[in-house]
């Protein structure tokens, strides 16, 4: 079953075609990676799929429904969650509270009940706290719940964003450069977290520059260059595609490029 089917997406910013007729179709349960040089449109594609931008052309189908043009919060309520390349942490809140916000789409109390702290709110808080705690434990932050989110190290913040998105029990999780700026140990941790998420049947879309991570973990790799699709295939197919190597380093750098992909 296709969990996400984006058909010929295009978007223009001030006359520049940031994305031009890009289609992606993602099978449920896969790890689907999007790679490409800087400025090739990877994050733009993420912003279209998560509803932050509306495409000028094309359509998006998520879990069988047309969702083109829906705002991010409505997509989130249907089970589409994401993280951000430049962290978007709730830094005034504790680590646990960050993950608790992730549960928002499952919370059912109204504002009057919240003001009066009715018993339903206490029960809701308890359920939310428990689920948030589980999400934190999955990314290895189970002991950090009471710490202010702002006090975590960079790699831990990356994992906190993943925990927050996971707490929402998404069907599809978009990870925007989860390993960017991480050292090899942190990258290894993130690799492990992604694998455990996939095991639970959550589909992953990954934008990432760390080729080792991408090639290790992906079922399919989609390559963008200058806002268009260059190719798509299994990691092996993409690795040996000369057009991909050229797009990254130009013709002359192809030897180094080949090494980078190994």
């Amino acid at each position, binding site marked *: 079953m296709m969990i996400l089917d984006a058909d010929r997406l295009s978007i223009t910013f001030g006359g520049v075609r940031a994305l031009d007729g890009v289609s992606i179709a993602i099978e449920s349960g896969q790890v689907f990676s999007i790679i490409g040089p800087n400025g090739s449109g990877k994050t733009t594609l993420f912003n279209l799929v*998560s509803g932050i931008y509306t495409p000028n052309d094309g359509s998006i189908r998520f879990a069988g429904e047309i969702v083109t043009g829906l705002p991010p919060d409505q997509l989130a309520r249907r089970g589409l969650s994401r993280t951000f390349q430049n962290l978007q942490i709730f830094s005034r809140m504790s680590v646990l509270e960050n993950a*608790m*916000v992730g549960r*928002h*789409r499952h919370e059912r*109390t109204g504002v009057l009940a919240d*003001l009066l702290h009715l018993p339903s709110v206490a029960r809701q808080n308890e359920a939310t706290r428990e689920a948030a705690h589980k999400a934190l434990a999955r990314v290895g932050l189970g002991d950090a719940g009471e710490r202010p989110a702002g006090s975590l190290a960079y790699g831990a913040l990356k994992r906190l964003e993943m925990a927050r998105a996971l707490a*929402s029990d998404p069907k599809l999780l978009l990870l925007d450069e989860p390993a960017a700026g991480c050292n090899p140990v942190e990258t290894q941790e993130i690799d492990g977290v992604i694998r455990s998420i996939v095991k639970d049947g959550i589909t992953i879309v990954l934008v990432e520059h760390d080729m080792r991570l991408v090639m290790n973990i992906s079922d399919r790799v989609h390559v963008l260059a200058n806002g268009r699709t260059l190719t798509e295939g299994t990691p092996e197919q993409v690795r040996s595609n000369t057009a991909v190597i050229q797009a990254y380093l130009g013709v002359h750098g192809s030897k180094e490029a080949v090494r980078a992909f190994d």
Partner: protein
Amino acid sequence: MPAIVVAVIVITLPLFFPSAYYYRIGALVFIFALAVVGLNLLMGFAGQVSLGHAGFLGIGAYSVAIGPIHFGAPSWLCLFAGAILSGAVAFLVGRPILRLKGHYLAVATLGLGLLVAIVLTNEAGWTGGPDGMSVPRLVLFDWSLRGADTWYWIAGTTFVGGFVLALNLMGSPTGRALQAIHDSEIAALVLGIDVARKKLTIFIISAMYASVAGSYLALFNGYITPDAAGFLRSIELVAMVVLGGMGSIVGSLVGAAVLVVLPQALTIFHEYEQALLGLIIMVFMIFLRRGIVPSIAAAFAGRRK
């Protein structure tokens, strides 16, 4: 816990009052603190500034003046009607202006406050114009509520109630969503939070807090002028929030207390009163930059480690 401490403060404070005059100051502190708690929910928690909140104070104040005088309605009913009217105005105005951010929102809310003040000034047939109007006393069960000590208890009790509601809200799903919006609207959105609706909700709630405080102020003083809704009042409320501590509900009480009590205490300096007040506020902000309560709390937490 903090609610119990505040309740104990309200109950025991009069034991230290040397004269009836202090009841009056106490009542004013709690009335302003009520409005400041509401504004702090909006500013400190949800991160949305309002430079026109005295507009809602004015709506509440004139509701308990105009209702009884022009329509013969009971004051308590007008108090509720005023709160609902304030909520309705916040709903109508909030939808378009809460899309704005930062300074733009500040200027838009400033306009709202000015608008209310000008309407109150110009509609002299209803409001008495710039000279204001007298406000009939609140009568409950044939008992006319007057006197500073009576109002001390009314305002104190209501403040504790408003305090508890605010704490409840902050520890709830809605409260977490609001705090999330403050830190990152985009992250709140992708987690399924309807940001526009949540902002509107808290704007309405905070308008109703201000409205009730305004009604109390009018009923307590027995007289009201458009200054209650004026720009300076709005700024005073914002100063109370920031001075006490953004996002600190206890800080709202402290901020209101400092800015109500200080001008009274400084009257002995005659013409230098205002200058000294300004100087003291500056010193507070320089040394306790996160506001009185959060800064002191952080200092204590640091010492314990």
